[in-house]
């Protein structure tokens, strides 16, 4: 028999705030985290905008710890500490054996890799920082979290590009649902806003052209004049708990995680597939036994590339039918940018906050809607006083992995 799973803690580090309350407020008030890059090399780049995190590691770590943690690890640990505290969890030794960590991360310790190459190729160094391997390895964040909280169940890192942390949350959900563990700390982190990171993404010709009037308006999902994605960074973590356990201890429950769909386009390495996206939504619905008309808010993948926004619109129409034009949908990437490996988790949290606040955040910069993206994308202004019982969060990645998470308000 499949067990039920509750979300009992949230934590976030993002371009729109480094705690849940700030993040929630900023999104609802349409505040953009996109701005001109504040780095030494920004004058060399052709795309000079990004959604950067404003983060002081000394707020979370000691002076001794800071140099041995890559930025991505710092984000992950900071978000995890918030989520842990938020959940008010306290586990004894036996319970910790039935608790694990699943993290999604696409590029690992990118800042450290860049530093490494700089040392080797520019400075001909013979020795590099001794802990380099430990800072680069993609699994470091998950392991550090496991160590910090003594969670000795499964500890894995998933890598599915822009769906990484959605995959992590979905797979963590199954671990509890299927009885392997009772608690999971799940989410993701990404910190790929390095010189090499920017250059790589620039070269792929998918980055947004800077808005000529206001850089903060450069990410325009579902707009006729959208020009591509804006890179972001950050981390988000959720605490997942077996429902009986959560209810029994009187835990704060944000929602029940009800369904998870995972498919592969098996088509093209970057071009999204209508079939892959419709199939993954159908899979998530099948698991929950819900119907499209039960969804009160969709957090779209909405990267603001030509193809994603077009195809995601078509996929929603295909799956939701007549209801497609009734359900409120937004792409909050318009504000926090594309946080890559962290996107799935950050945006899942956005969906949970819609339930918590009974309010839905906007897609900002939507002044010229694309006639081919003619659904209710909540243009520019968030809406309060909306009945939100069930939410869906989409993540459609490079490589073709598609992930959908469905969560519902606790009844009673």
């Amino acid at each position, binding site marked *: 028999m499949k067990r039920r799973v509750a979300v009992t803690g949230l934590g976030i580090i993002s371009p729109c705030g480094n705690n849940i309350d700030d993040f929630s407020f900023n999104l609802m008030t349409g505040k953009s985290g996109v701005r001109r890059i504040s780095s030494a090399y920004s004058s060399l780049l052709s795309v000079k905008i990004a959604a950067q995190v404003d983060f002081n590691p000394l707020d979370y770590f000691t002076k001794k710890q800071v140099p041995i943690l890559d930025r991505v690890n710092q984000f992950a640990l900071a978000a995890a500490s918030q989520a842990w505290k938020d959940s008010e969890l306290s586990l004894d030794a036996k319970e910790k054996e039935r608790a694990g960590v699943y993290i999604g991360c696409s590029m690992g310790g990118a800042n450290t890799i860049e530093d490494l190459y700089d040392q080797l190729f520019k400075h001909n160094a013979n020795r590099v920082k001794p802990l380099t391997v430990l800072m680069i390895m993609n699994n470091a964040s998950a392991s550090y979290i496991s160590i910090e909280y003594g969670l000795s169940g499964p500890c894995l890192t998933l890598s599915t590009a822009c769906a990484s942390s959605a995959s992590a949350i979905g797979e963590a959900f199954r671990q509890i649902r299927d009885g392997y563990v009772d608690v999971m700390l799940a989410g993701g982190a990404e910190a790929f806003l390095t010189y090499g990171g920017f250059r790589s993404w620039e070269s*792929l*010709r998918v*980055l947004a*052209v800077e808005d000529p009037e206001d850089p903060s308006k450069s990410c325009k999902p579902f707009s006729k004049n959208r*020009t*591509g994605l804006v890179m972001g960074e950050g981390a988000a973590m959720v605490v997942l708990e077996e429902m009986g356990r959560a209810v029994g201890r009187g835990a704060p429950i944000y929602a029940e995680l009800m369904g998870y769909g995972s498919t592969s386009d098996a088509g*093209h390495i*970057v*071009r999204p597939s209508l079939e892959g996206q419709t199939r993954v939504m159908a899979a998530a619905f099948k698991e929950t036994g819900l119907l499209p008309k039960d969804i009160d808010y969709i957090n779209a993948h909405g990267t603001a590339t030509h193809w994603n926004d077009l195809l995601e619109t078509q996929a929603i129409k295909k799956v939701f039918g007549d209801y497609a034009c009734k359900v409120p949908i937004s792409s909050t990437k318009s504000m926090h940018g594309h946080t890559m490996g962290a996107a799935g988790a950050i945006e899942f949290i956005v969906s949970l906050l819609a339930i918590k606040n009974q309010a839905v955040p906007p897609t900002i910069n939507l002044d010229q809607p694309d006639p081919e993206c003619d659904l209710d994308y909540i243009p520019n202004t968030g809406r309060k006083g909306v009945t939100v019982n069930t939410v869906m969060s989409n993540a459609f990645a490079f490589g073709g992995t598609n992930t959908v998470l469905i969560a519902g308000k606790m009844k009673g």
Partner: protein
Amino acid sequence: MSTTLERLQKLFIARYNYKLENLSATTTLEELGLDSLDMIDFLFDIEKEFNIIIPDQEFKVKTIQDMVDALDQLISEQNPEQDTGSSSHH
């Protein structure tokens, strides 16, 4: 001294396994089996060969002649000293 078309044909042959007879001015990229991702990758080789920057948002081309025209335009804007050997009029 090579024309833009000839240099472009050489790049196609060097990068992919096309035969010269299949690279006429009227050949479409679709016929060549190049999708948008292949083009993004190939543009990098083209930029290096012609010493130009191809802006992201333009360069919507269907045929090889379209590419030659677009390249000649960019060369005249960015690298006017370069001899395109082209006698065609745009």
